[in-house]
């Protein structure tokens, strides 16, 4: 098993960014990891087409927590369209273990090894699935 528990991932797990709840979220979504029953909540605050703020809460394993932390960091301030592009990029990345050409993944690169861990893919994608639902709900 390729070692997924690298320093960047552990850093996000120990010191998660944007953890907690928002006071006035535009909408909140919940996700459940069928593998272990872990639950995660995303609060999103939009300003028109722009994601002004985002927080996540809930218990989870290091992979799901770090994935959520990285997600919030990467997407805060982005537009709905940009976020949708990111969701596609992330799914592709998780499936293949490679970033599409010309895309800078930043810390998310720490999840590179996940494509070889089919069982843990659900942990890494948990916050992203929740985000996807949030966006589709926001679009109406």
């Amino acid at each position, binding site marked *: 098993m390729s070692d997924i528990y690298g320093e960047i991932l552990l850093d996000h797990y120990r010191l998660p960014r944007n953890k907690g709840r928002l006071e006035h979220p535009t909408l909140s979504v919940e996700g*459940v990891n*069928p593998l272990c029953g872990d639950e995660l909540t995303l609060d999103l605050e939009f300003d028109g087409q722009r994601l002004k703020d985002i927080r996540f809460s809930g218990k989870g394993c290091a992979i799901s927590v770090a994935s959520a932390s990285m997600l919030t960091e990467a997407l805060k301030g982005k537009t709905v369209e940009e976020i949708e592009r990111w969701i596609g990029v992330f799914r592709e990345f998780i499936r293949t273990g490679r970033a599409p050409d010309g895309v800078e993944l930043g810390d998310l690169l720490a999840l590179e090894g996940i494509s*070889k861990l*089919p*069982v843990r893919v659900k942990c890494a994608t948990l916050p992203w699935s929740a985000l996807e639902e949030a966006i589709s709900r926001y679009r109406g």
Partner: protein
Amino acid sequence: MKTVEEIRRDFPILSLKVNGRPLVYLDNAASSQKPIQVLNAYCRFCESRYANVHRGVHTLAETATGDYEEARKTLADLVQADARGVVFTRGTTESINLVAQSYGRKFIKHGQAILMTPMEHHANLVPWQVLARAVGAELRFWPLNQDGTLDMVEGRKLLDARVAMVAVAHVSNVLGTINPVREIVEMAHRVGAKVLVDGAQAAPHMPVNLSEIGADFYAFSGHKMCGSTGIGVLYGRPEILEDMDPFMTGGEMIREVWLDHATWNEIPHKFEAGTPPITEAISIAAAARYLQEIGMDWIHAHDTMLTARAWELLAAEPGVTLYGPAGERGALVTFNVAGVHPHDLAALLDRDGIAIRAGHHCAQPLHRWLGVQATARASFYLYNTPEEVDALLEGVRAAKKVLQLV
């Protein structure tokens, strides 16, 4: 391209001696043998990659899960289907029971009809009898022509809007008839009926393209295609599987469980309760790869050549009656020899190392239609040779002599 001699060397059992004579294995429609490639894949997996699948996060659990899901894709590719619709079952029989129960009990209603053919294997007949009795549905039977093909004119008349399900063999395991399943699916869909095709005798022997056939359900077994027992495939169109209730319940097929109720996992997992046949999936996938390397077209042509030869030789032999259509047919010939009980024929052939099957081949109603209790059946596969067909004929002649009434 391998020669038949090379193929034969892949199958350890074919070098066996039976009663001092080289084994001539002509019982492939009952079950086929396994090449060393399949046995090796099995052992390698057990020796270095095995664990239970789908819930473990350790390395072996990840490898085993990956291999198991890869096996699903391999089988989906074999019949050109969407892997989400590929459910691993114990075999054709469980596949059909699953549909009869999980689809049938939910969607087939009192007063509707199930249309079958009289040539069905018990596996594609009795589950529908049980369902029909449970829900109050009617059983209809598509008439046969004299030669054991479907009477398409009379059948069309039975296919009215009350028909909810058509259950039909792709290839008959007794008559060898290759049914026009694509045409039947088109006809059935036009009146809103679903179609289950029993592919047990087809998938191992010829290219099968489910996206072309359009069947709603398609079933086949690992052990008839050089793979393991204990595994088979049910393909179901994903949108239909989504709507169906689970068949068995337990681990892996659930999403969340409370003391008094539970919710279901997504397809195809919803239909795979408990520890699935993991090593069997490795085996059937290795078998599918082996067959594909040889080439399904080549196998079909080879089978057809052997079958035609057997038909020709036996048709010319006095006292032999052959059953089923004379032309294009599945990889088998079914026959009787006047004055020789099929069981005696099989037992006497066995003295010469020749393995054929005798009996009703799990198709009693068809035998009633044929007007006989039992028949003898020789069935062929990629590793059989024209010389083995000739040996069959010699064996038949010898048996006639032995049992000759004085």
